[in-house]
């Protein structure tokens, strides 16, 4: 049933995305239009997570590929260009050290 609902959402143009905040492992799952950019998706995720964007934060796929060069691409472009097919993302925060 959930799969059927999800397929309908995808066909209607609002697929589910998942964004994990790596400083807590909390996640946000929400529907967003295929026409939204990675930047818009990233910004929405902060609001859904209740977090503030900080200098140095990075937006990535969940396998660690940086999306920073692709922030202007839409979700459908990310899919078509094989940058992110599953719409699973993460926010990595900068640390101090080395």
């Amino acid at each position, binding site marked *: 049933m959930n799969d059927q609902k999800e397929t309908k959402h995808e066909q209607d143009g609002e697929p589910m995305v998942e964004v*994990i905040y*790596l*400083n*807590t*492992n*909390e*996640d946000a799952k929400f529907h967003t239009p295929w026409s939204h950019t990675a930047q818009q998706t990233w910004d929405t995720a902060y609001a859904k997570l209740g*977090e503030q964007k*900080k*200098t*140095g934060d990075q937006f990535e796929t969940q396998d*660690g590929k940086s999306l920073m060069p692709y922030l202007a691409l839409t979700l459908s472009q990310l899919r078509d260009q094989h940058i992110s097919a599953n719409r699973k993302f993460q926010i*990595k*925060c*900068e*640390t*101090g*050290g*080395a």
Partner: protein
Amino acid sequence: MAEIGKDPVPNTPADAVVALDSHLPIVLRGKTMSEVGWERPDLLTLYIPLSGQRADGKEDEYMLRLNFGYYPEWPPSAQFVNPQTKQYLYPDDVSWLPHFEGNSGIAMHTAYKNESCPQGRQLICCSMTLEFYLVRHGVDPRHLWNSKRDNFAATLNAIRGVLQQPYYKGRQAR
């Protein structure tokens, strides 16, 4: 709350356990300790197996020990250990530490020495580890551990990140 130039203060064990218990299911994201291979030998310690992904696709196995004695006001202690002895003795156990390079937010020292630790100690040099504050490492305020926001996922994910390419180079050489 972590502050620049302030010595870390241990939490009461009871409060530290409460914090760890509340954060553990969030960090595990629906999985169980046994599913991910984690061990909790006492209430304030976790042993976490990690893999280093080499450029040639091969993997090296490591054991990370997190201790939560100062948690959550300060980040957990994070130390790689010999998986057999669950200890780190320098220099015998150096090869149980990963070698990674090229990330300005984290570095690995097999025996870090300064005025606060003249004898030398293993240091995962990252603002998400307790040892970083124990050795009074310099830190930009925006990188400070924030106990109101961060949990130990921040520690674990910072370390996992450098066990991937392009950072991970293999085991530390003796």
